[in-house]
Each structure stands twice: as C-alpha cells, then as structure tokens.
C-alpha cells in the first residue's frame, strides 16, 4: 500500500514536471504575442473597460469587432510597457468616462456615488420626525369632548 502511494506520487510529480516544461511562456491573443503576466495584465485592463457596442459587456468578454480591436490595442500597449493607467487614460481620452465600467468620483458623478448616503439620511430624517410626533401624544380633550366622553362612559 505504502509503495503504491509512493509510486503514485512519483508519477504525479513526473506528470507535473512534463506539464510545466510544456507550458508555453508566450501566447498569441487578438493578433498580439505576449507573455503570460502581460496577458494577465491586459485582462485586468480589459475587464475595467466597457464594450461600446454591447454596452453592458466588458471589453474582455464581448464578441463585438470593436472589442476585439480594443483588446489588440490594449495588448500592443502592454507589450510596449505602458502602465495600466496610461492605457485606460488612452481610452478615456477618446471615448470619455463612459468607457469605464466603474465611474470615477468626479463632480458629475457625485449624485450617483452619494445617493445611497442621501437616501439613508432622508430615511433617518423621516423616522426621527415620525418618532418626535408620536412622543408628543394626542392633544388634550376640549371641554365639549370632555362632556361627550362623560356621557358615553356613564
């Protein structure tokens, strides 16, 4: 039994070794040859950008021709050594902040970003007002009401 386990482990080690030797260090995607870390970086960038044809898909996921071209541009710039921010800025410069799937915090998007806080504040305000009114209790009875109450109770 012990020998079997040892043999299995050795076999697994060999298989992994062969697999590691076989793993390519570069791949070709969207017409660009790049290393695995470069491809990973390109995917991170593409996941942050909107495909402008299928507008709720990322550039990485979309099948649209324009998205494919975007992926090519991103990869060529990654290979050239540009930073993620430089590549994203290149896209924003041409297509505006709409190309970003996560909108940046700028005056134009303040309402968008702060609306949850505003809604919470409004809700708390309503709650506070309602509670204050309840604490006041009902107004005292007028003399007429007093008489009527007496009449009903007797």
């Amino acid at each position, binding site marked *: 039994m012990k020998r079997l386990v040892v043999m299995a482990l050795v076999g697994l080690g060999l298989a992994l070794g062969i697999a590691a030797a076989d793993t390519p260090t570069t791949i070709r995607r969207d017409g660009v040859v790049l290393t695995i870390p470069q491809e990973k970086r390109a995917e991170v960038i593409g996941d942050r950008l909107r495909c402008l044809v299928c507008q709720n898909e990322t550039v990485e996921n979309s099948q649209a021709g324009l998205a494919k071209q975007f992926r090519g*541009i991103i990869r060529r710039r990654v290979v050239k050594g540009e930073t993620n921010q430089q590549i994203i800025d290149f896209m924003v410069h041409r*297509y505006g902040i709409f190309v970003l799937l996560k909108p940046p915090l700028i005056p134009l998007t303040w309402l968008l970003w702060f609306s949850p806080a505003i809604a919470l504040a409004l809700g708390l305000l309503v709650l506070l007002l309602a509670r204050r009114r309840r604490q006041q209790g009902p107004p005292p009875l007028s003399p007429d009401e007093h008489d009527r109450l007496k009449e009903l109770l007797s």
Partner: protein
Amino acid sequence: MATMLTRRLMFGLPLVAVAAGGVASYALLERMGRGTYNPQAFNNPLVGHKVPDFSLPGHDGHAGFDQAAIMAQKRPLLVNFFASWCVPCVEEAPYLDAIAKSGLDIWGIAYQDKAAALDLYLAKNGDPYRRLASDAEGRVAINWGVYGVPESFLIAPGGEVRWHTAGPLFPEIIEDQLKPALQRLT
C-alpha cells in the same frame, strides 16, 4: 385642516411623481421613434478639440487625406465615417447627397471596408464625397472615438471639431442639430 393637507400631499405627491415619470418615458420613446434620441449614444470628447493626428490613403480614384489637409481647410467640413456593409449608412446616403448639394463639403472615411465592395456601394447609393479615404484596419476611427458607423463630425475651418453625431444623418438631426451648428460657424 393641517392633517387634511398632509394627507392630500401624501397621496398627491407620489401620484405627481409617477405621472411625471410617465410623461418623461413617453417623450424618450417618442424621440427614439423619430430617431432624434439614441439611448446608446454618449458625448464624444473630441468635440471642441482639433482633429487627431492621422493619415489615410485614398480609395481608388479619390484623394485621401490627413490631419494637415483638414486643418488647412478654409470652409466648414463634414467628415463622415461609413462602410459599405452598414445598413444605416445606406439609409443615410440620400440625405448625405442633399447635404453635399447644399454646399457643405463631405469627406468620407470608409471604415474596415474592401475596395470592390466600396465601389459597388458608391455606384448604387451615390458618391457625395469630395475626398474619400480608406481606414481598412479601423485604427483611425478608434483614434477619433468612433464606435460604430455611420458617425459624422462637423469641423470648423482650421480643424476644430464643433459637432458630432453617432448614427445616420436623418432630416430631423440635420434640421435640429447640424444646420444650427453650421450656422454658428458662419
């Protein structure tokens, strides 16, 4: 009396809000139907700036052009990105012809197109282009922030982009947007 007013407001205000939302939605749908509102459109950041650096070869028989040629223009210019494989471009073609006849120069950029298909398209739908360049790879289009065809840019003498639309130049857009933009130039 005060509670009566509060009660009326509590029922009335949401009703007013819902009605206003309905009217706004109807207005959007109606404008979408007329083609004057495109929910997928967004502002092209190139408006208000000079055209980017580029240079494109001409489609056979036509003169190509580059950034310098646009900047050297003394008259307003309409740059139209289109393609022979694009259906809205066919729908736009008669109105482009009318614009060209009205005296506004149109320079075309054929986006990811093949010469033979383009020749057929021009023979069938007319050729309103004073110059016609070919952007076979589509890289120049991306540099202009184009995301689909047709897209049109109105350019002031000297090369500044003054107006842009994504989608076909239908009469409503021409009357409501292009003509006023052109008038502000002259």
